[in-house]
């Protein structure tokens, strides 16, 4: 099948083709899934190098799972979110205390703020990441899946193996903690302009 036609196939169909030795499916899945997996790992770890290692490991596990993948039983993305979370939790437990304190976030440089809406947005993203790094693991995972990845609560509950009510509780507590952590930064990061 040509690349263009294969490109539109859903993840599980591509995975079946991958297991049959289709090189085009391997390339499409790599280009489609690596950015998602990498971004999710980064949000859970706050470290780019480690996030890349986790992304590679998670996808290697997916390739190995391909021959026995049962289409329709689980979404590939749901499976990957779960594997990434487990790998990230393992790494954080091994290297406890490696997160960047919120005070270490680079401050926007004086005199450049007016010219740098892009920089301000970047600073917000960095500030949020640093605050996320300080949340308990489960709260961080729930907040990232809900508010950055944009998943619905039932899917998050499936990924985290908890009830929907537990997801709501985790996201609620996580957001309260984030608000508290970012309270002192909202004005300087331009949050006051958004109200």
């Amino acid at each position: 099948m040509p690349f263009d036609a294969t490109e539109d196939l859903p993840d599980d169909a591509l995975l079946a083709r991958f297991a049959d030795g289709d090189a085009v499916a391997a390339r499409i899945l790599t280009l489609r899934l690596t950015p998602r997996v990498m971004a999710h790992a980064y949000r859970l770890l706050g470290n780019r190098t480690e996030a890349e290692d986790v992304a590679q490991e998670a996808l290697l596990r997916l390739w190995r799972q391909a021959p026995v993948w049962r289409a329709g039983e689980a979404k590939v993305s749901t499976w990957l979110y779960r594997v990434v979370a487990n790998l990230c939790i393992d790494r954080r437990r091994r290297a406890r205390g490696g997160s960047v304190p919120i005070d270490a976030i680079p401050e926007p440089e004086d005199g450049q703020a007016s010219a740098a809406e892009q920089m301000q947005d970047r600073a917000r993203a960095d500030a949020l990441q640093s605050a996320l790094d300080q949340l308990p693991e489960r709260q961080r995972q729930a907040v990232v899946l809900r508010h950055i990845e944009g998943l619905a609560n039932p899917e998050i509950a499936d990924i985290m193996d908890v009830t929907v009510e537990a997801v709501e509780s985790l996201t609620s507590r996580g957001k309260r903690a984030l608000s508290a952590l970012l309270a002192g930064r909202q004005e300087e990061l331009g949050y006051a302009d958004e109200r």
Partner: protein
Amino acid sequence: MPMSDKDQDLDGLGAFFDAARAHSPAPSPDLLARVLSDAEAEQVWITRRAQAATEAPRAGLLEQLYRLLGGWPAMAGLTTAIVAGVWIGTALPEGVSSGAEAAYLVDITPEAVFELAGDF
């Protein structure tokens, strides 16, 4: 956007989540190359395992017979017996077709021949 704007405005985090989505870290070319390399290597293994699985039943039967007979010592004895049997089978008719041995073999139970003939 996963939440309504109103919800996000209430907790004051909407702009931060928007910024995080806008600044997703992109995978490096090196990571993409490593992932694709893993994928291609794994495809080779998957293909080899699938081929091995189709050949396994035949190899498995031979393996089972070999083990059932007792491994290589038993196979050596069995081979010797087969060779000896073939040699005897091909050499014996030539030996009995000549001389006194042939007469001895014919005359050894003449009464049995008459008894059998008398039944008809």
